[in-house]
């Protein structure tokens, strides 16, 4: 067991650099060295962009069967790299791709991926090893986890939880790593990615967004939130359950599976603030939350909050906005 290996995801620089930052935290706590790896051409642009002081060694995993992502291909490739390097920690960004293959990879080593980590701290008291904080109960509770296995410790870090470092000059070596993979070992056939529907709503460029969640209870109640959006001149958006129910089109969904937004004003109505929603809007300049539950996680990121029944607060607010604009 030697270093901290950070696996970057091609085309996902920001969250990969955040994983690098988390890897640096871990390397500082443990005194271990930092290495990185990614699937890509060692002579191509796989590591041309950097963040922080580059790790001394970067491994570029290359094989024709890694051209298109498949869980089987990636598990085989990283299993072989990990066997060769024997890292103590393997750090990933918590992306859909990582969620798709890393639990399998960890199982190969009889380990469990500590997923969606938001903080890494030094050992507490007489326990050994770093403490990994994860969110439980949709963000209403934090849990401190510790790795007790004998194999490598696998973890993935939540988008936005660690700050990517600005690039620093430094030299590093890119080493090619060519895993052994046979075509018959790839059991799934991936198709080319496609867009769901024609995007007619660009929430990303809207300066004001009024967003609605489960608290609205029925599709029939949506007009009261629409009226507020209209009064403000804001786009209407929603959390996932609203779009799942077909009450608003998927293109109006904000969150990890929808759009990521950072408007001047994000007004969340009846949205409790599950992690998947928060990652899509917490960079907003001003967040206002209206919710009947004072413990709702949305209030942890809100600048202003009104604790109350949205069916009373929203119409009152709409009226006050209209009056203010007259």
């Amino acid at each position, binding site marked *: 067991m030697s270093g901290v290996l950070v696996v970057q995801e091609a085309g996902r620089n920001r969250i990969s650099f955040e994983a690098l930052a988390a890897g640096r935290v871990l390397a500082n706590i443990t005194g271990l060295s930092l290495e990185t790896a990614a699937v890509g051409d060692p002579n191509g642009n796989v590591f041309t962009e950097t963040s922080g002081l580059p790790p001394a060694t970067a491994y570029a995993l290359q094989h024709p069967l890694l051209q298109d992502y498949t869980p089987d291909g990636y598990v085989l490739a990283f299993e072989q790299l990990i066997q060769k390097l024997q890292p103590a920690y393997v750090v990933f960004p918590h992306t859909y791709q990582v969620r798709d293959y890393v639990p399998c990879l960890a199982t190969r080593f009889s380990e469990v991926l500590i997923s969606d980590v938001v903080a890494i701290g030094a050992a507490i008291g007489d326990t050994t090893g770093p403490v990994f904080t994860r969110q439980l109960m949709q963000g209403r509770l934090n849990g401190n986890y510790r790795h007790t296995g004998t194999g490598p410790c696998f973890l993935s870090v939540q988008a936005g939880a660690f700050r990517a470092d600005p690039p620093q000059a430094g030299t590093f070596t890119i080493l090619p790593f060519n895993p052994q993979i046979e075509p018959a070992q790839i059991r799934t056939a991936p198709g080319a990615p496609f867009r769901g529907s024609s995007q007619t709503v660009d929430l990303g460029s809207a300066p004001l967004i009024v967003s609605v969640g489960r608290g609205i209870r029925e599709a029939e109640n949506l007009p009261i939130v629409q009226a507020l959006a209209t009064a403000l001149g804001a786009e209407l958006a929603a959390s996932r359950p609203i779009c799942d129910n077909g009450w608003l089109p998927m293109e109006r969904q904000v969150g990890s599976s929808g759009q990521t937004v950072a408007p001047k004003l994000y007004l969340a109505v009846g949205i409790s603030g599950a992690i998947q929603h928060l990652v899509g809007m917490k960079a907003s300049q001003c967040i206002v939350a209206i919710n009947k539950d004072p413990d709702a996680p949305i209030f942890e990121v809100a*600048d202003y909050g009104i604790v109350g029944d949205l069916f009373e607060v929203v119409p009152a607010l709409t009226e006050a906005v209209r009056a203010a604009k007259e």
Partner: protein
Amino acid sequence: MKIIVAIKQVPERDAQFRIDSSAKWIEEADLQFSLNESDAYALEEALQLKEKHNGEVIVLSAGPERVGTTIREALAKGADRAINIACDDLGARDALGVARLLAAAIQQESPDLVLTGLQSEDLGFGQTGVILAELLGLPHATLILHVEKTDSGLTVKRELEEGWFQEVSLPTPAVLTIQSGGNKLRYATLMGIKRAKLKEVRQLAATELGEAAAPVVVLDRVNLPQKQKSTQILPGTPKQAAAALVEKLKFEVRVL
């Protein structure tokens, strides 16, 4: 098609949590429990596949006695039978330990398809299905919104990030983790609830499914999150709070 749906009973989402005296978990006596949302979508997908292609839908759940009510709900919605792994120490097992229990029960049934939700609302590890695939030696796909049976297996619609999707083809038997929103959930009918009482629920003890290995990941303690921002709560009646917010929007946020 013989389909097993692995479901989990979780605390209801609006529950108020109190940390218990061990500081390692919450007071469960306070809580109401219900079916994990993405597991409900997994069950719905299984029921629709059965309606199209015939076969059998078996729900599988591990946990203490209270899990029985969630299993009955699944049977009332149309699952044919159930397997209940009685396990009072679920929290002491890590994701691999729980998946080993489920995998041992699944192996006895040799299904064509194993479905589960993409993640639980309580622990949110999001990996039981993927670990199951590895333990069972089966191919898998995650974040699935739609399943189509083909001559050689399945073609599934997989959700990618930021509004992108992808089709994936894979042979059966296979494991899929289901994303919410792919189908409209059904309610149990009165007739369904009546019939559910007569359906088979096979009880398995966790001890029958092999020795529990020592966990490789442990939850040391839980705590209530610290606020990231200092939220200014605007008090008063709805009208007063609305007026106060308009002032803020006008003079501080400057959007009015």
